[in-house]
């Protein structure tokens, strides 16, 4: 159990619980099944993007363009649906488009030898212009309900959306902990030079990680379209901040080499709980990025300054 839930994960789970108790006391709506379901549904896109971000951070990279990549993939899925394409095919186009965009980001980083933060910041600008140009200043709306029905209509009592998200998590877990890709990715995150000396194909690992993260962002786009059936001009604007915050809150190192998927899941839940709870007690939603950003900075500060053993145990990252 200690292996399953390291110090950090336990702390984070406790933080979620405390937040839930405080908001439950402050708002009668918070603990209703309907509201909790809303929190879960709102966590979907962030969870998928954050899992990808976790892999990227562990590999020693980062991708601040994933929000825009999700936006572009959402436009692809939306327009395919509006063109009358079969909803299942349109849904699959999301991860495919995301993977292609991830390949672009990975290629720029791996072949251009550009630091990931700078390379993906450049792509963020390009992708955002792409979204503006494609949408032409208006929302993409009036998307038919085919995909929504497909993922939300229960099969044997379970909505396919839940199964798909479970499978995505499982796929990331298997990739990271049960195939050579995992240790190779973590070795590159620890030191790409040592990884190279050990005979690891560093460039291939970089490309693969960006492609996987891109595919996850693309899958997030599919769920985004299924849920909202529109694409606004500001789609994905806060996604990179939230995904990085969720991963780092969970215990993934921003310096690479270490990550925890359970921690990322808990980080996503905490962020969405906070946002939902603050909204219910009357804090304007404009404050949400402030709260998310503050949580990120506080955790990084605690990690850097974890002087006392007690504090260190609370924030210690799982091995």
């Amino acid at each position, binding site marked *: 159990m200690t292996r399953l839930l390291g110090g950090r994960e336990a702390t984070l789970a406790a933080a979620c619980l405390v937040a839930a108790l405080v908001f439950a006391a402050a708002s009668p709506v918070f603990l209703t099944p309907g509201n909790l379901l809303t929190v879960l549904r709102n966590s979907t896109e962030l969870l998928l993007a954050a899992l990808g971000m976790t892999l990227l951070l562990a590999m020693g990279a980062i991708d601040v363009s994933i929000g825009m990549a999700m936006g572009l993939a959402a436009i692809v899925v939306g327009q395919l649906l509006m063109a009358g394409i079969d909803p299942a095919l349109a849904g699959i186009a999301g991860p495919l488009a995301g993977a292609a965009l991830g390949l672009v980001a990975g290629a720029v980083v791996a072949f251009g030898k550009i630091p990931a933060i700078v390379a993906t910041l450049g792509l963020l600008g390009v992708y955002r212009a792409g979204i503006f140009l494609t949408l032409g200043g208006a929302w993409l709306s009036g998307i038919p309900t085919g995909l929504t029905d497909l993922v939300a209509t229960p099969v044997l009592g379970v909505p396919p959306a839940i199964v798909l998200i479970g499978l995505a998590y499982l796929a990331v877990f*298997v990739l990271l902990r*049960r*195939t*050579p890709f*995992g*240790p*190779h990715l*973590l*070795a590159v*995150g*620890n*030191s790409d030079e*040592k*990884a190279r*000396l*050990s*005979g*690891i194909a560093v460039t291939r690992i970089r490309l693969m990680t960006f492609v996987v993260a891109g595919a996850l962002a693309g899958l997030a786009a599919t769920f985004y379209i299924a849920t909202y059936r529109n694409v606004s001009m500001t789609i994905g604007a806060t996604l990179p901040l939230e995904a990085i915050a969720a991963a780092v809150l969970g215990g993934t190192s921003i310096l690479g*080499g*270490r990550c925890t998927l359970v921690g990322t899941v808990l980080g996503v839940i905490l962020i969405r709980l906070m946002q939902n709870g603050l909204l219910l007690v009357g804090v304007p939603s404009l404050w949400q990025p402030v709260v998310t950003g503050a949580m990120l900075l506080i955790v990084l500060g605690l990690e850097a300054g974890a002087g006392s053993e007690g504090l260190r145990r609370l924030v210690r990252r799982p*091995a």
Partner: protein
Amino acid sequence: MPTPLLEARGLTKRFGALTALSGVDLDVNAGEVLALLGDNGAGKSTFIKVLAGAHAPTEGTLTIGGTPVAFASPQDAANVGIATIFQELALSENLSIAENVFLGREIVRRVAGVPFLRRREMKDVVGRLLDELDAHISDPDAPVGSLSGGQRQAVAICRALYLDARLVIMDEPTAALAVAETRKVLDLTRRLADRGCAVLLISHNIADVFEVSDRMAVFRRGRKVAERRRDATDPEEIVSLITGAHPDVRALDKQQ
């Protein structure tokens, strides 16, 4: 005498106008520890980098078990059974011992094309290797970052063993170690040779070298100036060979 495992003949390496290695002939036999000695800049590092495939020689030949070889990369050298344990070790501190030993060469079982790690099997192999080396590391799942310098050397040696290396090159393995740890690593070095490996050991520590090696080769200014069996020399002679105070070396220096 059986054929040496490795024969270097006339090995020369120039970097522009600088001759780092000049016409070195050297044999390394299976089952022996050969120590390379010499001052900084004597050419030891260049020599092992040529053997490890990190540098291509400008002139000269290398044969392994009688077959001429030419290395384009460290991977080529590894493929013919040369494992180099660099001073900085190239281990990933965030990964476990088992993961480090198998990094880049994991044992996998393919299911529908997906390579699944055989974690139990890799753990068992590493456990056996560590036992064999008597390394006193109980848990192959422990992260390498939690190990001492000597234990990390043991992990690097395991990695070489798993490669089925025929020649293991160790670059200053005891440079940063405490006394007890040094002892352990020297034991490991000896054990490697006793298993039939050829070991090429670079060290500045004459006492260590006399304890563990069968033969010694002294380098000076890019040349091999002397070769001695351990039982036919003493530390004083070796030091004089390294510093150039020995009459043989002085004669050589004068020739140049």
